[in-house]
């Protein structure tokens, strides 16, 4: 299970004068391409970029890739991230020249296929979430959150209301408070119950007239479905408070229940989680945002609309919160999500969630004896364990994560949600099979045994990866953020 070693950076390979590109000679009668450009605008020396052959590049990046675990090669139970299988069909479709080579400023009449796909995808996402309108523009979940909160803000303002606070549970993902603050709100942190549920009494106490919105994750970040959700949304609405659903955990409820039906006013989607677009080592994703009709006027502009037989970009949205990115959204990801939804159909999507839930509960059941379960089940699509028992033996959640790497698995999310001590957040996804879950549970149980009997093997871990544990402190104290040649 050991990984190959390879320690070069691209700057450390190659040789002066070596090139990896292929460009034709100029075929136009322009002698000096710099003529007419003031000297001071021009670069004097060529930039210090690599000098490598195409083959150097291929071998370098092929070898670098081998230093990674990915979903294609390893079980990747990173909680809250829905690391499911990324269908290769999506990739082939997104690379069709009609999609991949389409310029965003192509006249809409010459981009009907793309606009139509976007229009239909927005409709489908609306149906899935029980929302009245969907903007595909946000580039990721966090930008969806920003868009959502800004729409809430615009809504209140349009109603002449000045509300300044947004309530966010302490179990929330960091982007929730960050997006809320970015949207100009004061964040009020609510204490969650031990299982991550909202403390209704506490909520009620906080629902002051200056509260604009309540933002929660459903299922919550402990993997539990917020049971009293209708009471919550009703209560909020009664106080004029909008309710935002962080849809990162949508993979748990497809076809089972819908954010809109739960009373949410806004919710974002993470297409890179629920809808199989690849995670790419950290992005790109796509974070469409759905709203109820009262928020529709505030959607980011432009909106893709259908006019008779034709699709168009509607820019005339006077109440719009504006644009979030230069163009229309992460279209490449939209093609993949569309392909996925059309592949699965309504029954398939429901089975997705059922199996995601089944897999998480199975892991929880198999590990409940050896690890503390953060909240009693049944859980939804992920389960959160606590390594507090192991901590007492000197083995932390981090240690367990590292040991898992040696045993051939990527690690769960650790130390999130913050309200769980030594949290290990495990999200298997529906695309994994029982065999893989069993192998993972066996490894986890083995680690629990090792924590009792031979913790050294855990503290030593990882030993099979290309590097061993890294000095994070040094990295932060003496930031080394770019390569420099030894001069």
């Amino acid at each position, binding site marked *: 299970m050991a990984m190959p070693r390879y320690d070069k950076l691209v700057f450390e390979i190659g040789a002066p004068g070596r090139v990896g590109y292929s460009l034709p000679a100029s075929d136009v009668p322009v002698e000096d391409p710099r003529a007419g450009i003031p000297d001071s605008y021009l670069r004097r020396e060529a930039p210090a970029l690599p000098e490598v052959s195409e083959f150097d590049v291929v071998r370098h990046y092929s070898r670098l890739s081998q230093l990674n675990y990915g979903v294609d090669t390893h079980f990747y139970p990173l909680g809250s991230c829905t690391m499911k299988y990324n269908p290769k069909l999506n990739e082939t479709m997104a690379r069709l020249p009609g999609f991949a080579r389409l310029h965003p400023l192509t006249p809409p009449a010459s981009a009907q296929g793309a606009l139509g796909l976007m229009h239909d995808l927005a409709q489908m996402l609306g149906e899935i979430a029980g929302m009245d309108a969907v903007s595909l523009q946000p580039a990721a979940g966090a930008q969806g959150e920003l868009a959502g909160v800004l729409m809430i803000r615009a809504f209140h303002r349009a109603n002449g209301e000045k509300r300044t606070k947004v309530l966010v549970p302490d179990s929330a993902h960091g982007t929730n408070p960050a997006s809320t603050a970015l949207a100009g709100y004061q964040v009020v942190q609510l204490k969650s119950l031990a299982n991550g549920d909202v403390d209704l009494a506490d909520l009620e106490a906080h629902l002051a007239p200056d509260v604009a919105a309540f933002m929660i994750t459903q299922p919550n970040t402990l993997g539990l479905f917020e049971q009293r959700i209708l009471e919550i949304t009703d209560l909020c609405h009664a106080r004029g408070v909008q309710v935002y659903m962080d849809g990162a955990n949508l993979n748990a409820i497809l076809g089972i229940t819908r954010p809109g039906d739960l009373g949410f006013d806004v919710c974002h989607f993470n297409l890179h989680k629920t809808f199989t677009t690849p995670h790419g080592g950290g992005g790109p994703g796509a974070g469409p945002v759905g709203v109820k009709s009262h928020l529709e006027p505030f959607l980011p502009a432009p909106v893709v609309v259908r006019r008779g037989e034709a699709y168009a970009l509607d820019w005339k949205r006077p109440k719009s919160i504006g644009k979030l990115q230069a163009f229309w959204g992460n279209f490449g990801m939209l093609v993949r999500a569309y392909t996925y939804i059309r592949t699965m159909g309504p029954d398939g999507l*429901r089975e997705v969630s059922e199996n995601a839930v089944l897999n998480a509960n199975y892991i929880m059941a198999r590990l409940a004896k050896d690890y503390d379960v953060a909240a009693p089940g049944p859980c939804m699509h992920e389960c959160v364990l606590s390594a507090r028992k192991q901590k007492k033996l000197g083995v932390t959640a981090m240690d367990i994560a590292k040991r898992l790497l040696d045993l051939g698995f990527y690690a769960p999310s650790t130390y999130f949600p913050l309200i769980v001590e030594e949290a290990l957040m495990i999200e298997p996804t529906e695309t994994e099979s029982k065999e893989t879950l069993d192998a993972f549970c066996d490894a986890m149980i083995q680690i629990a045994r090792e924590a009792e009997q031979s913790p050294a093997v855990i503290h030593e871990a990882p030993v099979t990866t290309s590097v061993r544990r890294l000095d994070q402190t040094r990295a932060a104290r003496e930031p080394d953020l770019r390569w420099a040649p030894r001069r």
Partner: protein
Amino acid sequence: MRYIGNTRDNQREMLGVIGAGSLEDLLVRIPAKVRLARPLALPPAMAETDLVRHLRALAATNTDADHAVCFLGGGVYDHYTPVTIDHLISRGEFFTAYTPYQPEASQGTLRTIYEYQTMIAELTGMDVANASIYDGGSSLAEAALMAASVTGRAEIVLAAGVSPLHRRVVATYCEGPAVRLRDAAARDGVLDLDAARAAVGAKTAALVVQSPNFYGCLEDLAAAAEIAHAAGALLVVAADPVNLGVLQAPGRLGADIVVGEGQGLGVPLSYGGPNLGVFAAKQEFVRRMPGRLAGATVDLDGQRGFVLTLQTREQHIRREKATSNICTNVALCALMATIYLSLLGKQGLVRVGELASAKAHYAAERLGAVPGVSLAFGAPFFKEFTLRLPKAPERIVARLAKQKILAGVPLKAFDRRLADGLLVAVTEKRTKDEIDAYAEALARAVA
């Protein structure tokens, strides 16, 4: 069912282990009242063969840059993209990994980010670059907010040449933090330095200049820097990194923050997204920067290794006090750019710039010579320029699209004073024949 791991037998066994009678039993926490009582109203599942047929047909209705000659720009460009890039980024180990939370099992991604940061810093002439922001628009927005936070001032002055598409994004992001935007007018296509001097003052966090600007004209960044710095403001420069093989690094001209749309560095057009937001700054601002940073360190055995670092800036640690809300970024596009810049290398990027500039200048001459057509501005330009047409540009564009020429971007929607304006981009990929054919088609269309 497709893409689902468990068989019915698996399910039964697993339910047994869980001690549940059925899948339903696992959903007990979901109140009956909120359960969806019907199947989702979505089209039924399609088999691979049918779906491929459907999507091919859909894609075929679009006029893409493989099937037409593309002179569209406005922020993203039909630049040369070595096919090797896609082969490499498609490797599952890159493609299906996520943010490198476990660095020991993510050295591939971390090393490429570190390489990317190095290349972007070098191109922009800045000290540090982050691991990417969504796109050029949101990157500019983040720069504006960062400038406000660094200077403690709440006003941003935007040169008129800043892309209106990006300006709108900046406006959205500035809404919450109540950062005000002011515009500094242009003269003959470039920033009017007097207007800039007048607009920039003690409240100004940053002067934002894009060069080449939206209309293709090159700005005097050194002069802009002087104006900004004289007022204690930062200079934020938006630049297209593809151009920086030939054009001076903004950092050398006084920029404090450099942002830009990096799509030209090997990222597919893809109808405008995902793109690549480039973000670089001076060392002194590093702890105020948005986004991810990878840094070098050592492992237990003293071996070099890479980690995500300075995470105390980020939302997962600092929550509402984070420098930005960004989480998922566009790491894979940054990888495309890294591979692109490795392939093009020291000489190639210069060559791309020279070719694009030569062809753009040839095109400007040919198109500007079409009777009734003229160049809108006298300022120097690089790979893109604005024409004035004697007939409605929308009409001309529609007509040429039928001849498989994507003629340019009509400017009316962006600037009412340029209702007759057409923005034309010419990359190194365009051939003399294509440009000549365009000139002839344009001549016929405006005649």
